[in-house]
Structures are given as C-alpha cells and as structure tokens.
C-alpha cells in the first residue's frame, strides 16, 4: 500500500510516523511518501491532508496544482483523510472566516464547517470521545483551534460529536476529524483509515 501525506505545511512528520505505526499493527506492508508536487498524487492508495494552517495549505496546494489532482483521485474513489485543516479543505461550504479570507475549499464533502469553532489557542483542549466505530474504549481527542462541522448532508455518516458539534465524519471514501489523532499514541483512527474501502 502506498500512502501519501500532503506535505507543504503542517504536522506532516507526525502523520507519517502514525501511519507507519498503524501499518505495523495492521500487518500492512508499503510505503509512506511526503507529497509536494501534483505529479506524485497518481498511484497513491491513500492520501492524508494533515493539520496546519488551512489558509496557508489552501494557497500552497492551489499553486502546486495539487487541488486539481486531489479532486480527480477523490472522485475515482481514493480514500482521503483530513485532520483539522484537512477537514476544512475537504468541505464544500465554510463560515464567514472562510469567505473573508477567500479560503480555498476542495468541495469534496457535503459538510459546512466552522473554523476555530471552540475559540483561540487558550481554549484548545483534549478530552475523551466515544467513537463506536473504533470500539468501546474512548479515543483521546486533541483539539487545537479546531474547526467543527455545522451541517452535514445525508450521505455523511457522523462518527463523533462533542458538545453537540460534529467532530468526526465519513462520506464514502472521505474521512475527517476536527481533532488530531496523529498527536496521540493511539493508532485506531489511522488503522480505521487504512482499512477503509
């Protein structure tokens, strides 16, 4: 299996090491590649859009032509996971922050997102989440200036909520989280993504 992490800005190394760990645990062989160019996208079996600053990553992927390549492979069914900034980028609708900054959205997932839904950095937090798809043991969610999903279309499966806000969801081959599974040692989310079909 060949997994690519879109690597123009953000916590790329953290995702790469989380994928390596999940692959070992799931007994999956393959490689994880750092993606900086559009021509690297074809041939990937799985793609991750990491956490970072969504306005920055949005501008950089457009300049590199990666937005076009991502839309193409997503429509062909390649699984894509987006965490935090990655969730914002996969959405098809944003809040006033998205409008004000001219934020690029890939528009692949039928969700409306709100940036910084829980406040600025002093309000960032971690907490245990119940995610039935991952089993009964709670999953530690690390929320950093995190976005949330305000509205989800009927094709969207809600995986987790926190205080009535949707914080993890799936739409066929697309998987998104408001929080950062890559900042924990718990690989269940990455394993779930590797098994996605």
């Amino acid at each position, binding site marked *: 299996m060949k997994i690519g992490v879109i690597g*123009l*800005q953000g*916590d790329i190394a953290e995702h790469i090491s989380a994928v390596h760990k999940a692959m070992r645990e799931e007994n999956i062989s393959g490689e994880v590649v750092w993606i900086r160019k559009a021509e690297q996208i074809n041939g990937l079996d799985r793609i991750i859009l990491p*956490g*970072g600053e969504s306005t920055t990553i949005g501008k950089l992927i457009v300049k590199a032509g990666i937005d076009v390549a991502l839309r193409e492979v997503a429509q062909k069914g390649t699984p894509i996971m987006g965490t935090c900034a990655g969730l914002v980028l996969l959405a098809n609708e944003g809040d006033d922050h998205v409008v004000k900054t001219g934020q690029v959205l890939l528009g692949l997932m039928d969700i409306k997102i709100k940036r910084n839904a829980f406040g600025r950095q002093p309000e960032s937090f*971690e907490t245990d*989440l119940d995610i039935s798809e991952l089993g009964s043991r709670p999953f530690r969610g*690390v929320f*950093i*200036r995190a976005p949330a999903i305000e509205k989800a279309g009927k094709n969207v499966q809600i995986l987790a909520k926190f205080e009535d806000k949707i914080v993890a969801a799936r739409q066929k081959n697309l998987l998104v989280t408001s929080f950062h599974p890559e900042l924990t040692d718990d690989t269940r989310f990455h394993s779930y993504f590797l098994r996605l079909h």
Partner: protein
Amino acid sequence: MKVFKGTVRVKRGFCQMTKGGVIMDVINGEQAGIAEDAGAVAVMALERVPADIRAAGGVARMADPIKVQEVMDAVTIPVMAKVRIGHFVEAQILEALGVDTLDESEVLTPADEEHHIDKWKFKVPFVCGARDLGEALRRIGEGASMIRTKGEAGTGNVVEAVRHMRLIIGTIRKLQNMLEEELMSTSKELGAPYELVVETAKLGRLPVVNFAAGGIATPADAAMMMQLGADGVFVGSGIFKSSNPSIRAEAIVDAVAHFDDPKVLAEVSKNLGEPMRGIDIRTLAKEELLQTRGR
C-alpha cells in the same frame, strides 16, 4: 466528559501545526492582512518591528493591548505577541487577552536579568530564543513549547541565525553518538536538565518545534535555514522593511514550503524589489547586540 486545557500536548501541538510555515512580524491590522493573504501561518503583533526598536533605543516593552487586539480582529490566523524576558505580568495580560502564543523575547528590554518566566504556569504556549542547545533546553525546562534561534534581530543579516541553528543541531548530532554515561557530564557542561538531554539524544531533535529567527530577509535565507534543519521561519523586519512587502512575504512562504527545490526557489526569488538594507553585525558594539540578553 472532562476537558483539559493548556496541557503540554495541547501547547506543543499548536506549535507543531505551524511547522513548514512562516510567522511574520506586523504592527497593525493592515500589515496582518497582507501577511495572511501571503500565506503566513501566524503573525507576531508588535508596536515596532525589531529594526525600529533598534533605531529607537530606550526601554522596549510589551505592545499596547489595543494594538494586539487590532491585529487579532483583523485576521483569522493565530496571533503571537512578545513579552520582556522575565516579565510574567506582561505575559498574564496578553494571555488574558486571548493571544495564541507568547514570545519571551530578547528583542524587548529584559525585565529580569537572572530569571526567565515560569512558563509551566500558563495555558498559552511560549516560544523562546536560544543560541545553543543548553539555552534551548533550559527554556524547555522552564516550560517553553517552541524554540527559535535568536539570530540577531532587526539586522536583515542571517549570519547569527545560521551560527545558532548549526550549533544547536550540531550539538544534538554529537549527543546521538554519546554513551549513556557521557550524557550526565554533557548536561552539566551545557547547563541543561539531564532528562531533557537524554530525551533530545534519543529523539535526535529538540522535543519541541525548532524555528529559525533573527535576520532572515530573503526567500534564499529562509530556504537555507530550512535545509539546515529548521521546522519553520520567523521573519521580523525583513518583510515590512523591504520595498514590496506583499510580494516578498509570499515568496518567502513559497520558499519555505519548497525549501529543497532550487528551481522553485529561483522562480520565487525573481523581481522582489529591494530587500531591507541590513547591518554588518561586526560593526555593532557589544552592548547593541540583542542575542546576549537572557541566560
């Protein structure tokens, strides 16, 4: 469900999200907007950029909170602000304002020549400057969630940032070749907490994000710092003291994202106009150096 704010993971995690990015000094909402449009991952709100602080002399203090608020209201990206070394009340004030990260900075006039702020007491992450590994690990020991080189701020001259980054990363490389029992005497020589020396040797890098700062003025400067091992770049006076800030800011963002691709670097380095004039650091008197502030 129980909620935990200001944990080590939440504070360091925020800084991890800025990796591969450029953090730009700005003095008002308009400049902050230019930085955001150029693709900055965060802005540092100041009353004056370091080059002007250097020129003005006198005591440089935390910015007026109204100026910091103006920047916070102008952009959606994170906003950082500087406090004087050791001035924990300036830090309390800016934390209360809701700033995303505090820089305990040698660019401002130190308020305490013996002690830095006890940064564990704060929910907001701190970034601190360092010239060598010992200084970096002392700051982490005090609770810093992010390190940057001190360089020599406000000079537009990258030479000191290069010196500091090479020294920090070179010393880590030496630690990795040491036997366990050699790490204790090394921690004494470095003046750094033993546990952090052991952790750094094991990781082969600092346990927190490590940015370059202090004198970066061009896309080439920024990309060089990334190739030397920086996780990202602060640009202070280099942008708004140049002839065309928005074009230069965007070029530096592109250079950091594509730091190891000389073809992209050649493209983004074209037609940027005049960089900031800059200062040969050898012409500065000892007491004019900012990097020797703090310990």
